[in-house]
């Protein structure tokens, strides 16, 4: 397991799209450093040959038949939208 000092708050905050204040960064670095140091103890566990648990009860092939059902009327779909025009969501111009 990597050392907790690896936590690069700027990089991670960028990935998470979170603008953090310098105070938040400093605070989180310390607090999460503690948590990561605590988590280090998982290194002690011998997990060789152990299957990971993704679901408490593994069941396979949970699906639905391909039958179309009514969705939301456009008014309901956009009811909570912060900005809309022509039945579409408005965002600042996306360049990429």
């Amino acid at each position, binding site marked *: 397991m990597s050392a907790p000092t690896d936590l690069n708050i700027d990089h991670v905050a960028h990935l998470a799209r979170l603008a953090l204040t310098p105070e938040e960064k400093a605070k989180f670095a310390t607090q999460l450093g503690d948590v990561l140091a605590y988590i280090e103890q998982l290194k002690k566990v011998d997990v060789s040959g152990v299957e990971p648990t993704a679901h408490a009860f593994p069941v396979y*092939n*949970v*699906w*639905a038949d*391909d*039958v179309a059902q009514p969705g939301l009327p456009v008014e309901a779909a956009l009811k909570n939208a912060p900005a809309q025009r022509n*039945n*579409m969501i408005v965002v600042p*111009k*996306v360049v990429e």
Partner: protein
Amino acid sequence: MKYEAVIGLEVHVQVKTHSKMFTRVAAGYGHDENTLTDPVVLALPGVLPVMNKAALDAIIKAGLMLGCEIAPVCKWDRKNYFYPDSPKNYQISQYDQPICLGGEVEIELPGSARNVMGEHKKIPLTRIHLEEDVGKLNHGAMESLVDYNRAGTPLMEIVSEPAMHTAEEAFAYLTSIRNTMIYGGISDCDMEKGQLRCDANISIRPVGETKLGTKVELKNLNSISFVRDGIAHEIARQIAVTESGGTIVQETRDYDGQTGASQSLRTKEMAHDYRYFPDPDLMPVKVDEAWKARIKAECPEMPFVKQRRFFDQYQVPYTITSVLVPDRELSDYFEEAAKLSGKSQAAGNWIVNDLLRDLGAAKLPLADSKIKPAHIAALVKLIDAGTILNTAAKEIFTEMFTTGDMPDAIADRRGLKATPTDAGELEQWCRDSIAANEKALAEFKGGKDSAINAFKGPIMKAAKGKANPKLVDETLRKLLASM
């Protein structure tokens, strides 16, 4: 120095289903903005995905058609990245356990001429996985408007090995994938509707070198010709950069088909970190032999396999099969006409030359054609029996196309059938014609069989065009044999 390009393609194919990949609101194209959404599509707080069985069937079919190994177990992963067209800001996809592994795509390169079959190759596949499509952004001057109708549509990603070397190969590869998907009823692959999309990974290396060069990812190859042009452009760009002493940087470039230019979107340093992890909201998929067998039984014959069979079974030439085979419906149509008529080449000619020309002019799809395989077969049989002549047949065809009446009825109605002539009268015309052309007689006697045709014109003239050509030929031969 001579350079060789190495190309791998990532092709996204929308799967034709009634509902979306992980929710049951309708999937479709051309609907009013944001009318194909529900809480799941919009990623409202609290919603959960449920996978679409038909999309799984479709990708298994695609995999079986392309010779992939179908994984006995596959799972779903989240690909995390922020983008306004992606409602959850993660895409449900398959990362390390895709459903289809390996496989290959048979391609045909352009021949030396249009009517000559080109070289065939097999391009190996890495994998095919299933995921969900994103919404659509409409860009204005200051703002972008988001429509989520497309979001959540089932999408297959077909990833090739870096095994192509020219833009032509990439073009042929994409063409073959498109034909295969349409054949399987998996997708309509209309590039204009975004049902088929292509990204290319391109690098160059000196000929003889085996190590791969630095690759550039080319995005937004939005039409099948842009794929060819964009890749050719990128290969040329990389060679030019290298030859002028520059180095290729690993980056993603955007190709603009209108201007033929490309520009950098992002470099490796700015590359995404997708933080893939198994989607806890979805259960894995197990595919057993029975499921595979059931889908296998639904798989159609592959286009190139069919083309080879048409050569063997119907002796139709490349010029005909190359038109018929890419279209499953058209090749089925041909096969029916060929079987009904027993004259496959003639049927093929009528379909490829006359029917397609008239359908094209009338902008009609084959399904709407009033001329059915039975019409073609009947027409071919009438000609073969000598009941009608070729000129009459053309006229009959034109009327069949508009009315859908059988050729026999049209010929009767319009008096286009060769009239059964009095045997004595025909024999007299024949004797007259032979007598009038000593040169041809001599040639025929001298072993030139085609000289017989020289006698036929005057006979037809005497018969006012309505003599049965077969009977004329037989009578002439009988008389000539006795001379």
